[in-house]
């Protein structure tokens, strides 16, 4: 909505606590693209779509509406780098914009906790959709200084495109947004079996049923390992965590020997835009510690 090139940057939980390198990379690329990221004072957990919504949909909406309202007061759209945050904030925003009854109920509750009133004046954006569609594979060429010569297993995660009627980004059955975007950065996307299934983390499964979560991941990983990608590319810190720490778990408990680096779209983009590789923080991740990108062409 806002004409000035700025976003309210919604951090969420996992990125700042577990993978600050993704935050660093995101801030780097947004600055290079000429967009300002504004911090959201007193923003809370999004709250997570799987767990909180399942227990109390109304309170889930209230907490999300509060976060959205913080950005409304800043008069900017929200940017998130996480499928979970996107899932909650985009969905609640979409619902409240179209449903006056819910909006009124939510605002009644918001009144009790302070100066908050949901308006419905901004949009919630995801970094992958911002890079893939708004900037796009063409325009990104103007900002990158090098490309990467690599193959990747792309993981969309669940909440980025689904439910498609609400997200309205692209068909979740055979999406191309990430494939086309990373190709512009030199990365070749590999097709693999059951590409669009869940990583096993979301919906509270990782916390409540760790065994089930790891069984899902084990199948996913065996399908990925079969096509031998250089790295796994994701757009969500929670999927990131699952793939990163999950590989180590599988290696310890199921006799596998995975060491496939896990890379967020912001990390890849930041590298191509010229960020010093030491800030990409691969050495702080659980697997792929020694991975470094192989640049294919470098602009001066």
């Amino acid at each position, binding site marked *: 909505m806002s004409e000035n090139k700025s976003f309210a940057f919604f951090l969420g939980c996992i990125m700042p606590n577990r993978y600050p390198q993704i935050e660093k990379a995101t801030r780097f690329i947004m600055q290079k693209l000429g967009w300002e990221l504004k911090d959201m004072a007193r923003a809370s957990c999004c709250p997570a779509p799987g767990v909180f919504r399942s227990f109390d949909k109304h309170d889930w909406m209230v907490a999300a509406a509060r976060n959205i309202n913080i950005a409304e007061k800043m008069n900017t759209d929200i940017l998130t780098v996480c499928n979970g945050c996107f899932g909650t904030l985009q969905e609640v925003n979409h619902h409240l914009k179209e449903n006056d009854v819910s909006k009124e109920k939510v605002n009644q509750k918001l009144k009790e906790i302070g100066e908050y009133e949901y308006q419905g004046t901004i949009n919630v954006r995801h970094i992958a959709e911002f890079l893939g569609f708004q900037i796009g594979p063409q325009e990104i060429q103007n900002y990158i200084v090098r490309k990467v010569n690599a193959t990747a297993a792309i993981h969309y995660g669940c909440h980025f495109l689904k439910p498609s009627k609400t997200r309205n980004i692209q*068909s979740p*059955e*055979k999406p191309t947004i990430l494939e086309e975007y990373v190709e512009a950065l030199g990365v070749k996307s590999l*097709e*693999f*079996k*059951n590409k669009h299934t869940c990583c096993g983390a979301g919906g509270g499964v990782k916390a409540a049923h760790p065994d089930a979560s790891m069984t899902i991941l084990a199948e996913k990983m065996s399908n990925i390992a079969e*096509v031998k990608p250089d790295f796994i590319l994701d757009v969500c810190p929670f999927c990131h965590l699952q793939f990163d720490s999950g590989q180590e778990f599988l290696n310890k408990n199921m006799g596998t020997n995975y060491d496939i680096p896990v890379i967020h779209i912001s990390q890849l983009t930041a590298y191509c835009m010229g960020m010093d590789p030491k800030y990409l923080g691969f050495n702080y991740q659980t697997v792929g510690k020694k991975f470094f990108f192989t640049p294919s062409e470098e602009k001066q």
Partner: protein
Amino acid sequence: MSEENNQKKENVQSDQDKKKEEPRIGVYICHCGHNIAGTVDVEKVVESIKSEKNVVDAQHYMFMCSKAGLDMIKNAIHEKGINRTVVASCSKNQHGPTFAGAIEEEGLNKHLHFQVDIREYCSWPHQKQKKEATDKAIQLVKAGIARSRELEEVETKKLPTTKAALVIGGGIAGLRAAYDLVNLGIPVHLVEKESSIGGHMTMLNKTFPTNECPQCSISPLTNAIARHKLVTLYTLSQVKSVNGSIGKFEVTIETKPRYVKDNCTSCGECAANCPVEVPSEWDMGMSTRGAIYKLYPQAIPSTYVRDKKTCIECNTCINICPVQAVDFTMKPKTTTVEVGSVVVAAGYDEYDPTDIEPYHYGQPGYEDIITQLQLERLLNPTSLTNSLVLRPSDGKVPNRVVMIQCVGSRNELVGNEYCTGVCCMFAVKNAGILKDLLPNADITICYIDIRTPGLNGEEFYKSAQKKGVRFVRGRPSEIQRDPKTGELRVIVEDTLSQTPLELPADMVVLSAAMVPPKGIGILGSALKVLRTKEGFLKEFHIKMNPTKSSKDGIFLAGAIQGPKDISSSVAQAGSAAASAAAPLVQGYVEKEMMVAKINYDKCVSCGMCITACNPAAIERDADGKVWVNSIACKSCGMCMPACPTGAIQLINFREDQLFDEVSALGGGKSEWKQKVETL
């Protein structure tokens, strides 16, 4: 035009000469056994209303609908000189015609009967409040009397009909309707958009539940139609406009050029030498055709047809034709005919599964996913494979075939909530046929529910089970293709055993839904008939008249009214033909002229009534003046609230008449009536 002028003159006249004799009202309260009298004090009702203005006779009786009750009314007409009746009894939908018919027998206009419902509206809902129910009944009857005073006589007209019928669609339903019509001596104009009559039935390999050859079943009918003297056949044609109303429609038919003249002997030399080869639409891509071709060997008319779009104009056909029948200079033709009734039998289209992305139908690498109609063409004696079961991608014999039910049916995501209702039967049929042809093959049907109702349905289903067809209850989520081997896998949960399955498949057959045919929107608006939200043409009443459309004189046959099988289409076509024939055989239609009339002193020609009129009975003439085609008017009254000036009024439902009734209900004061009138 002269008829229109008469119409307009009439509108003006009837408003002016409203001289009426003084109303003499007979009021009759029915006990309906204990139904009414058990709650309502009928004697008190009679006492309360007998001194109302214009009431000449007031009585109550046990059963007004009995002969004795009706005689009570008839005697009053003769002995007391009553000239209109109010009967307080059941709903007018139940016995309105009984009482109206009785006064008509005694020479009164039947529209001078008014019925007050004191059973459904009073005694039944208020059984425990007898006093209040009696008070309410009195009020209702008083309102009825007030309404009765102003009722006008309504004339019943006999309108002559044109003895000819239009049948749109030359599939099984249209053919059957046309045949039944000509057998009643009615000339038929049969319009078919393809180059041959026969429709979908001629595309099928076998028909359920007898596994009969459909070509054998239908060709006696196609041949009979083709040679019948009363049939005028228009192939490659479409109906462009339909004007008028029941008994007299003017129809414009547009015919595309065939580029081959009628002296064609169907020798096939042209097609055999045509250098063009394109996939045959008729064979759903399972064979090829030239740019000059015949749809299928038994096509009627058997004259070849040239497809201008794919023709390269090499002139080989022109030169080779032994009778010089090929003529590239033929032009489109427009014909206008007049008919008394119309039968719409425009059929259906098979749902195009490309919308359902997880099934990948039509995408590169997924050539072995076909629809049931494609399978029918594959198995057909004239197919590219010589009717051998060979899969499209590499021509190998498929040893594992999976059929998926409800593709485009029962699927809210694609907007089709309905069950097509015949896919279970044709899938069971084709699975059984495949099992007969390939006894060692695994044939699996994935279904949500198997729906094979009626005689022979369940037996047919069981026969496929006995042949060894496997049934898996579950709607497949996806058809996957192995990135390495290219093998297809159907991902489905067997919901009976709660087991996720991956069914490897050499060929997948989608049981695609029946959907309204392309172009039905244009035809529907040309016909001015209502459609369902799914796009099919809507029947008048789902139970009592599933054959008539929303417009008088236009009837529906076959799948255009909703998905159905051949048996039901034939049955409905027969019914449509009989209904369409009735006014033509009789020579006239009876029309009660209880129609909307326009007071031109108030009319501002805004046209709001035209928009509100569902049967499209209100039109604007060349001068911009709005007029009511009283033959087409269905007395629904939708025009009245639409009119901003109150100029258009429905006879006997005029606003002042309704005010009389309502104000009597409100206690009899009619001050507010005057207040509103002055507005």
